[in-house]
């Protein structure tokens, strides 16, 4: 029997580790479902609706890239906890549709996995929690260090910046970030 113990322990640890990783994905996916609901209610009621009662963040916008059929609900703030559930709207940056630059960040392996497929010229639709829709066009991208983003929060234009970790397929965290820049081209239809 003692021979059985080491493979059993190994299998157990492996399963836990695997489950832990899977849990991150499951959480990210489940949260988006709940957020989707909360966001729809936000739009209906015009109030901030928390996706679950103990949440300390709330949905602020939906971003959609119709060409590749991707969509995600953006949360207020970019604390580690918030990013587990959805893309975060960076504090101190403008709201979508306002003068300035709205910066949304999300994990490269969950909610912004689709970012690699977004091409320059793609239309990005942003729906705010007040129901207003804005249409952006992706016009440039860049790789920057996290602490030298070069984002000008006081820009006079109406801009959108989506950011995630770079490189996309790395499995360890690094200092580089991928920036996708888009400029407002009009209200949504």
């Amino acid at each position, binding site marked *: 029997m003692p021979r059985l113990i080491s493979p059993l322990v190994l299998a157990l640890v492996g*399963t836990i580790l695997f489950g832990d990783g899977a849990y991150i994905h499951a959480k990210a996916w489940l949260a988006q479902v709940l957020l989707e609901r909360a966001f729809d209610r936000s739009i209906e009621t015009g109030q901030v609706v928390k996706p679950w009662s103990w949440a*300390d963040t709330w949905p602020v916008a939906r971003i959609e890239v119709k060409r590749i059929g991707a969509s995600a609900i953006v949360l207020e703030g970019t604390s580690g906890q918030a990013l587990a559930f959805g893309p975060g709207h960076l504090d101190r940056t403008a709201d979508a549709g306002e003068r300035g630059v709205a910066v949304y960040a999300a994990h490269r392996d969950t909610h912004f*996995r689709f970012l690699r497929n977004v*091409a320059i010229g793609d239309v990005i639709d942003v729906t705010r929690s007040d129901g207003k829709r804005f249409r952006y066009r992706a016009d440039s991208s860049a790789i920057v260090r996290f602490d030298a983003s*070069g984002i000008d929060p006081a820009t006079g234009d109406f801009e959108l910046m989506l950011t995630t970790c770079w490189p996309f397929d790395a499995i360890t965290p690094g200092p580089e970030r991928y920036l996708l*820049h888009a400029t407002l081209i009009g209200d949504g239809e």
Partner: protein
Amino acid sequence: MDNYDTVDSHEHPWLGRLIKVGLFLLAQSIAVLLVSFVALLVSFETSWSATTEQASLLQPGDAKSGSLLLKQDGAYTEAIRLGIDVDITVSGPTLRTRVTQAFRNPTRDWVEATYVYPLATDGAVDTLKMVVGDRVIVGDIKERQQARIIYEQARRDGQKAALTEQERPNIFTNSVANIGPGETVLVQIEYQEPIHQSGNEYSLRVPLVVGPRYNPAPIVQSVDFRKDGSGWGATASDPVPDRDRISPEVADPARSAPLNPTSITVHLNSGFALGEVKSHHHNVKIESPDNRTRVVTLADGTVPADRDFELTWKPVAEKAPSVGLFREHVGDADYLLAFVTPPAAEQATQKPLPREVVFVIDNSGSMGGTSIEQAKASLLYALGRLQPNDRFNVIRFDDTMDVLFPTSLPADAAHVGEATSFVRALQARGGTEMVPAMRAALTDKINDTNMVRQIVFLTDGAIGNEQQLFETITAMRGRSRIFMVGIGSAPNTYLMTRASELGRGAFTHIGSVEQVEERMRGLFAKLENPAVTGLSAKFSEAKADVTPAIIPDVYRGEPLVLAAKLDKLAGSLEIKGRVGDRPWSVTLPLQNAAEGKGLSKLWARRKIGDAEVARTLREMAPEDTDKTILALALDHQIVTRLTSLVAVDKTPNRPDGEPLKLSELPINLPAGWDFAKVFGERPQLTPTQLRERRADAGQPATRRPAPVTPDAIRLPKTATSAEVKMIAGLIMIVLALILFVFNRRRTLLTDAA
């Protein structure tokens, strides 16, 4: 049955085992399959919803590190050039600054230039002049939209136009349309600002760093005069540190691009005999026409605009005047500016007031990671600083709340020890219900007026119901003072500043564990030395509109600065408060006020700040606030978020190709302005700060070079450990299986043998 089974297993001893093994393997593989299936489903959810069409236009791999993949219409070497001249005249309590920006177009195209630049937060911008050739066009104040329309119209019509807009209270934009080839257009803006006083020292500060800075706004905005007080080296003992200097957002010079050459001249008319006059970051030449006047110029002529210019001066006398009273008559009203430094000398020798300190720490989920570590370290430091005669309590909250002691207890070793272990055990989780915690902290159970009551609130402010928190503070603040400590890389600064303003306290920002000690020491200097509390101002005869509406605590050596609009200049102003444990009051007869300049604008600027506060308190509807601000701004001709200055040159443009020569520049170029030096061949005058578009392009360019501002925004970490974990987990499971099968075989073989 039992018997049969036993017999059976005895007959085939290894068959039973084999079955068991098979069952185990089956269960194991089902579990693994289940988990992996769920994981796969989740992990590829986004990929499934996204069709696998390849991104054809852009390969992110092509992007070079640090570069923006932007198509540019023109080469940067041909960029518009900018030179800046700053001319400051200090007259007594106020200073007037004239910023001249020379936009030179060395290209062969007609261009429009946009320049974003910082100004002092409490400055009132009231004048815009555009100098084209020998003509000076004076700008008018208009509602923002209207000004924009006028400007766009002129731009389309090929007229020269300049527009000054406020982007943020301390960030402005100048746009200049139709700068001809080889032409130079000068744009001048002027603003009025109060001087800053701290103890014996007076100071002014000119922000020159181009690009947005995200300094947390000064603690109590209405008294930001004191922000320049310390950090000058000489006054290290000053209780209130300089917010700008200690803010982590200060640009790293090593990373900032070369900046626009700037020349600076200060005409200093202090109104008293001057002692030491000192520039802290620039080499200067100082001339002394007489003992009350100095003329300060840069020793090197021009400097790159890469740091703030700071000048301090002291009177010859041992002590600075403790009272200053200035008046200005504008229209049918009198404006008053009062500086009162409460007596402070003996305060230093007095033992500090006993205090009751309530620490509130946010341990909600959003504080997870380094934030909670910083908060805990800060709180532990604070606990260590308590004196035995202080009383204290600790409250922690997420979506639940714990109050450590039923009532505040003396800070003896036992209680501090208990609190320390309480804090050490905290973990970040749950939601953020801040209001009950604030309410508990504000509940004044002891109500001992001989003690100073202070609340130190450590949080990242990640809540959406700020308004509710502000209302709680306004309703319950009583005699408590609220000191907000913003934790983490991006705390809700709006919440911090407003809460501390309403709570008559201060805001400290801690962005990393390394900063904890320095920042908390600064905070404790404030906590331990409140010089004057419970301040109020009363005019005996005149009807007065006083700003700030809430008079904040004044710390040791700092002046109280009040601005007021009076219906008549009669009677006196009485200021009352408590210095330490004694009542203090001072009466200033208004008749003795000296003539000052631009006081009405300073008053208006501060009233606008008050209106913004009132709006957040819902004392005023947003529309009313806007109306108030608009009225004040139009009345006093100042630029606000609702008003802009616009200047249009109606005269037809000079024909193409005729360059504006240097000699054509107007004579009102400020003294000290050395054109050749200013425009000397500094390579690449940062096109990044200077966004331009070609006038003949018609439409505004959809894309502009994104300004490379040094780390204004830090991007969060956006990778999870999910994949590493899953891969490691899979490897281990496979290993386990191999080992298991291997073991099994060996067992079976030995058994068989």
